[in-house]
């Protein structure tokens, strides 16, 4: 009986993996196929990666994406970590309301948020006469920060809730100044979750399409937006090549997140 259940579970797991990864695998395979028409049989070649290296538009979009994602990572991680510490360690007026307001954006469709942001920036720039707030890379960045902030707060906050305030208090009773408590106790314990949150923030921004698409002014694009535009124009395996690169980066990041977050702080594997 147990054996039947076991093989059933295994079969189910294999099905899940197939449906998740087979399309990605096929897509990636064609990045290495010479034929521009996706013709079989596969003929291994790096031609599309080379073409990619000469595609200025895609590269510029890629650079934009990386820059925005990096800036977003720094800003969202700093702000989010501070917010998480404030939520976890202090009481202040309006805390519950703020906390409650933080998480619905995760559930609201990006399309809706994107539309709302588009209207907002348009309105502020045109109606309020603040030209700085017109669409551009910086407003895309603002949108990404707003979007990734709840994730950061959630990830760091979960870790903060996990470990008791008594640790910091114990350090203080042992003679550590508040600064030493922060450096020697809070930071090391929170570090894995902050790293995980930073990778999360990077991924949210780097993979973001809708917000970037809505907030990008003509002539400025990010990688996902540029890919979308190319696809509409009819596409070559160059898209497969860039997609493969993105997938490798994203999956790498997420694996690191999992490593830091799941085993956060304990480092049981290091002993």
């Amino acid at each position: 009986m147990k054996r039947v259940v076991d093989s059933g579970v295994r079969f189910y797991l294999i099905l899940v993996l197939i449906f998740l990864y087979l399309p990605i695998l096929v897509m990636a395979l064609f990045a290495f196929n010479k034929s521009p028409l996706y013709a079989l049989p596969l003929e291994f070649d790096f031609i599309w990666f080379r073409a990619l290296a000469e595609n200025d538009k895609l590269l510029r979009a890629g650079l934009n994406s990386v820059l925005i994602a990096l800036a977003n990572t720094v800003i969202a991680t700093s702000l989010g970590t501070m917010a998480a510490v404030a939520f976890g360690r202090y009481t202040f007026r309006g805390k519950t309301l703020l906390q409650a307001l933080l998480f619905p954006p995760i559930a609201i469709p990006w399309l809706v948020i994107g539309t709302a942001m588009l209207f907002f920036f348009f309105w502020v720039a045109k109606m309020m006469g603040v030209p700085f707030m017109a669409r551009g890379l910086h407003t895309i960045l603002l949108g990404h920060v707003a979007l990734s902030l709840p994730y950061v707060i959630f990830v760091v906050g979960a870790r903060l809730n996990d470990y008791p305030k008594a640790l910091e208090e114990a350090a203080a009773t042992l003679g550590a100044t508040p600064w030493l408590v922060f450096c020697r106790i809070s930071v090391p314990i929170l570090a894995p979750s902050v790293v995980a949150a930073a990778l999360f923030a990077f991924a949210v921004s780097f993979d973001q399409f809708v917000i970037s698409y809505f907030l990008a002014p003509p002539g400025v694009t990010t990688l996902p937006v540029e890919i979308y535009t190319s696809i509409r124009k009819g596409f070559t395996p160059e898209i497969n090549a860039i997609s493969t690169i993105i997938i490798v980066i994203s999956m790498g990041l997420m694996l690191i997140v999992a490593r830091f977050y799941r085993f956060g702080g304990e480092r049981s594997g290091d002993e």
Partner: protein
Amino acid sequence: MVGKDPEMSEIAVKRAVKRYGSVAALDGVDLTFTDGEFFGLLGPSGSGKTTLLRAIAGLTELDAGEICIDGTDIARIPVHQRNIGMVFQNYALFPHMSAAENIAFGLDVRGVPAGEIKQRVAESLELVRLSGLEGRRPKQLSGGQQQRVALARALVTRPKVLLLDEPLSALDKHLRQEMQIELRRIQRQIGITTIFVTHDQEEALTLSDRVAIFNKGEVVQVGAPRTVYQWPINRFAASFLGEANFLEGRVVGVLGHEARMALPDGSEIVVNHQGLANGARVLVALRPEKISIEPGGSQAPRLNRVIGRIHAATFSGSSLTYRVTVGDRLFIVFEQNKNRPPLPEQSVVTLEWETTDNVVVQP
């Protein structure tokens, strides 16, 4: 060696008040902890005992009153300069450090040289009998071992006072008893003034030189465990520290320092108490183990003797608990499991006790 501190450390708490909203966690508490004393703060949860401990540590600020160590008000001294050792309820060991690093932390942040740290950590590990486990992370230690690390960490800096917040509550019963003995041994060896919070009355009785019973932010009674147990001041103290039967009646005759008291059902008891006037309403606490229980109900009526019926008998190994109904009153009686089989439920029994067992308490 983690030696005895040559200086005195007496802690005086004066009219301490702490409010959370409209609730007073401390409502004018006066207490003095003398040098080298093992002092238990006992009370139900929310009675203010932990608040007082945290106020001494500097983790909670008082709204009014003061706390003095050796005559100096410490209100303005921040936590990290108070030189106290504290063991937290769940030990609060730093998860990212080994046992030795945990213990060394207090010395490290004080800038003690590495060589001396090493030596003192080794001594502390020896004191709590953990030598050989210094490289383990807290997660790799058992509850009792974690407790010992926490204790060593709190003591290694040679604090003036040791504060223990429910130190044994996370351990199972067997380990708890072992650690009680261990705690007492270490405290005696070092001679450090120790204040510990507990809601476990047995723990308080076993460990403390003196106890303070807390209720609703106030100190109900202070004294040696034996005294407080023997002479509870009021109903709360009597029922919180141990169990008690309460007899309420009116004084019907006074002879010297003895007063005869009539209970509502007509039976009479004698109390040994100064200054009781005829007709006064009196509350008497009577410990369940002081009552002797005998089968049958044919003895002649006498003072401090009542006849009742066993309503329920509970067997708990070394002892038996009888619930005996006398008229409309319920008596709880403890008896050692000795010499005879348990008395059957519903049987008629005679309860008897000594005059000195009747302790007059405030309501």
